[in-house]
């Protein structure tokens, strides 16, 4: 990574990515203390217990589902895909910001990624874990989910390779694997730091095993850098490909409201949009609670707000094109689809979606809003809701009234649908809390490279 970069934008250089006055030691102390501190903050205990409690709802509803089958959900005919797929797409989308931050911003030499990449990657992993629950259970017989993979079998049955659903299996499992590897490889040097600093013997052993014998030799660093760059290169196409494949799940079919050529780029933009909203939702309270404002500075917050605005505008463009082309096509079914979205029984979902995803982010044009953490926190929550509504509109509202009026039906989620969704929110937060308590939330060694001292050699 280069220093004294003349490419650096004027405006962003004013607020540094790291408040001056830190040394190698004080950075390490500050970040490692969160994981190694003897006393668990009471706020953490309350937060974790609450989330863990909420996660129990997920496990309970999975239990009932395994006993009774997916009939406990509100899915019906014609709405065969509902909460399960909405939540799957929503969670998968959230994960994208993590991959974008860690891979694409790394390749583009954006130094401001350094303090947010670690927990954004963790967020990706946990979001993918939450997402994976849904399609796995939606098969109805999750113990046979391995049939999704093409393996030579005595039944002579293969998955349909022309179905985007099977592409999804590969896209998502690749995504989960690469994200996990990327995150873990990035953690190794920091795990060694924690191993060396831990006072508790158990902690020492656990961190020691995870650190894979890292000694920080020149050769270790050389191998590390190569591996990290390779993984970044592997992750980059995944930012586009995963949500593109998810969008094919819909667009490759012919249901009006699903069959739209704009779906791939518009899904990818929506995913990044929701993902950055989630990163802001997490980082704003996190930096406040653990006093990390020197590391996660206003510059990070502002840049994320700008990315949210840009992706939000692409998503708005997608809505506009869908509405215009539905009319312009002159196709009766297409026109009805958009008319039904706007004025049908689920009209509220479409207009709330416009309010959350199109109107709210326009506040981000104002510098004042981009500089206010409270405003950004609220906007990011609204965008999170908006992106969920988007999938509700696409999936449920398109399916409930398609070609044949005789097969129209209404959809209503059951309490199990809600319990599963809220439960995954609990699972996600519980995992996030555990991560914050036991692993370095910010990459220690990468933060140290931001210090002027680490640059001396490079410039000489």
């Amino acid at each position: 990574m280069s220093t004294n970069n003349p490419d650096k934008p004027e405006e962003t250089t004013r607020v540094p990515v790291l408040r001056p006055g830190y040394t190698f030691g004080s950075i390490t102390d500050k970040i490692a203390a969160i994981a190694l501190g003897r006393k668990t903050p009471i706020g953490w205990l309350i937060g974790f217990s609450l989330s863990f409690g909420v996660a129990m709802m997920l496990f309970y509803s999975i239990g009932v589902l395994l006993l009774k089958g997916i009939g406990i959900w509100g899915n019906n005919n014609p709405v065969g895909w509902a909460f399960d797929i909405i939540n799957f797409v929503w969670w998968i989308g959230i994960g994208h910001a993590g991959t974008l931050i860690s891979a694409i911003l790394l390749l583009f030499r954006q130094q401001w990624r350094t303090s947010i990449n670690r927990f954004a990657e963790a967020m990706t992993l946990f979001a993918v874990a939450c997402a994976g629950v849904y399609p796995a259970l939606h098969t109805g017989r999750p113990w046979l989910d391995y049939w999704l993979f093409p393996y030579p079998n005595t039944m002579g049955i293969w998955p349909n390779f022309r179905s985007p659903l099977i592409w999804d299996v590969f896209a998502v499992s690749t995504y989960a694997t690469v994200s996990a590897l990327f995150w873990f490889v990035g953690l190794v040097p920091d795990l060694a730091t924690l191993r060396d600093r831990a006072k508790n013997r158990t902690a020492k052993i656990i961190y020691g095993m995870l650190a894979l014998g890292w000694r920080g030799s020149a050769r270790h660093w050389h191998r590390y850098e190569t591996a990290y760059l390779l993984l970044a290169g592997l992750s980059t196409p995944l930012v586009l490909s995963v949500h593109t494949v998810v969008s094919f799940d819909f667009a490759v079919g012919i249901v009006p409201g699903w069959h739209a050529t704009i779906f791939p780029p518009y899904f990818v933009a929506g995913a990044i949009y929701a993902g950055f909203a989630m990163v802001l939702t997490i980082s704003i309270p996190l930096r406040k609670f653990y006093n990390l404002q020197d590391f996660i500075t206003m510059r990070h917050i502002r840049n994320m707000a700008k990315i949210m605005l840009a992706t939000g505008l692409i998503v708005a463009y997608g809505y506009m094109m869908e509405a215009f082309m539905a009319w312009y096509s002159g196709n009766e079914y297409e026109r009805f689809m958009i008319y039904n979205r706007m004025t049908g029984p689920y009209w509220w979902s479409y207009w709330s979606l416009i309010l959350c995803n199109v109107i709210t982010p326009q506040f981000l044009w104002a510098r004042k809003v981009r500089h206010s953490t409270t405003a950004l926190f609220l906007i990011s929550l609204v965008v999170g809701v908006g992106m969920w509504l988007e999938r509700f509109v696409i999936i449920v509202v398109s399916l409930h009234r398609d070609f044949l009026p005789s097969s129209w039906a209404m959809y209503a989620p059951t309490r199990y649908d809600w319990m599963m969704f809220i439960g995954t929110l609990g699972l996600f937060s519980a995992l996030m809390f555990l991560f914050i308590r036991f692993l370095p939330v910010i990459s220690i060694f990468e933060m140290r490279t931001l210090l002027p001292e680490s640059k001396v050699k490079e410039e000489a």
Partner: protein
Amino acid sequence: MMDAAYTAPPELDRLQQRALLVGVVALGLTVAGAFLNREQFFRSYLLAYVYWIGISLGCFAILMIQHLATGAWGIVIRRLLESATRTFPLGLVLFVPIALALFGGHLYIWTDANFVAHDAILQDKAKYLNVPFFLGRTALYFFIWFVIAYFLNKWSRQQDEASDPKEMKRKMQDLSGPSLVLLGGTMTFASIDWVMSLDPHWTSTIFGILFMGGQALSAMAFIITMIVFLANFKPMKEVIAGRHLNDLGKLMLAFVMLWAYFAFSQFLIIWSGNLPEEIPWYLNRLSGAWKLLAGAIILFHFILPFFLLLPRKANRNPRLLVTVALLIIVMRYVDLYWLVGPQVSHEVGGKMNAAFHFSWMDIAAPVGVGGIWLWYFLTQLKKLPLLPINEPQLEGALGEGAGHH
């Protein structure tokens, strides 16, 4: 370094004269062609027009992107981009033949009252697809582009003399964000009007983005060709370094990939949907010799540039970079030909005739319009120093820079 004038080298004059000569001859031939075969003339002319206005518009978008992204690569090509946006008056004048086509019922089938009378969907769509509204929309697009380009150019010129160049820079940045949104909107509808409505029954929601991606790619290939040419002579010889070409090459690769991504998405979704409203568009383009063109586009518009630009070293090699850029400039033409060619060959009465055809005017028109365009572009380029001389970050953007790589 700062007091250098960065005036255009005399070699540009020679290029300009040649461009004018070629342009006048080829355009003269094309106009003569209008009397021989009017349908063919309009078809070839639309292709030429869309191609060259696309380069102006692509440069327009890249100009605003570089204001927002502020990199050394953007500073060294800024004056080229600005000159391209000052060609909009020419673009408006060159639109006249297309406007004329509307009144004669040529080119766009929806302007043919006879045809529309037998088509219920087109009668309904006449609310959008009618001549006055079409012309009004085009006027609105140009008005918006003029206004934005006017201010971006004015402030950039003022920055050269301003005592507080940062103030001008901030102004340009503040205008660029919202203007990109406006450009995205107007360009999308322009692409629907000018090209998609050639086949008024066909729709694709990604079409605007695909079209804009193509324009950005054409513009980047053109800019790279120009900058490598300028780097042969003083004063740009001392300015352009490997790192600029590296960044520009990477951007070109990114646009190649984006274009391919959009094009593939559209194809896959329409192919698998296989709907009667959509699939004929591809069936026409995949029949007979059109199929060969489609194959050539996959090979030379995506695969070959992708693998040539992928290695790290490639982007620092000016000769290779300019070869790829020239290949892309040609392939953009082939892609537009493949896009515009099949559907316009209809007979009144509604029968589509998508058989492959190629006329000498398909070459003469783009060369003619291009010659005039390039001449006008170079006239604009010579008006100002080749670099924004008062730009606060100019010094850091020259040569190999400090502490980079």
